[in-house]
């Protein structure tokens, strides 16, 4: 069970989790024994320690959504997870704002944790997103990810 959504505006991660819980309860009739969540927010400063005005997230409309869904389905299948939630920001994201939320429900803690972790790495390296750091009116494309 996949719930994938790109968010063009600021979103409240706990609200997203609450909606997901309601949906899971309605679909499954019971609440899963284990959930692992990851929440990422924009840092106040960028790669070169300059204070960030915003982080811009470009994506490939169509391909990005499909790609996330297929990465999520693959990770869920590999780990036997029951349900996966992904919310990912696009557009201009302010420091402190949520940029990515991944949640995995499973019957045991191991699969939930491993699936969540693996899917996050997959999103970082395989889903078509490009980050640009805006600082003092200058935008700089990021060519990699922060170290794990």
């Amino acid at each position, binding site marked *: 069970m996949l719930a994938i959504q790109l968010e063009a505006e600021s979103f409240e991660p706990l609200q997203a989790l609450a909606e997901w819980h309601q949906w899971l309860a309605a679909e499954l009739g019971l609440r899963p024994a284990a959930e692992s969540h990851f929440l990422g927010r924009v840092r106040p400063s960028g790669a070169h320690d300059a204070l960030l005005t915003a982080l811009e997230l470009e994506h490939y409309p169509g391909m990005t959504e499909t790609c996330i869904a297929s990465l999520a389905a693959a990770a869920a299948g590999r780990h036997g997870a029951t349900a996966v939630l992904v919310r990912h920001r696009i557009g201009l994201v302010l420091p402190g704002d949520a940029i990515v939320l991944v949640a995995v429900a499973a019957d045991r803690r191991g699969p939930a944790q491993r699936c969540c972790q693996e899917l996050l790495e997959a999103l*970082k390296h395989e889903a078509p997103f*490009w980050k640009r750091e805006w600082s003092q009116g200058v935008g700089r*494309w990021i060519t990699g990810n922060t170290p794990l």
Partner: protein
Amino acid sequence: MAVSADPASPVQVRLFASLREATGWSEQLVELAATAKGANPAGPTPEQLWRQLGLQPATPPAGVRVAINQQFAAWDASLVAGDELAFLPPISGG
């Protein structure tokens, strides 16, 4: 479908992020050059289009990836008429 590309058929080429900014365009319809067709009977490749469009550097950098019809593809895949080809600079999501 093993349809060979009509050399005159356009392919929609899309660029993103730093590649888009470096060239100044985000999409264009590209007519497949006859030379490209000649080099690969099964249809021209993303690598050939990269050169045909004069994208820089002439040899595609290792971090740049290719998508055909919104699926990751190889640099030597065969393009057919109506394909959407995208060049994707290094990904940084999550």
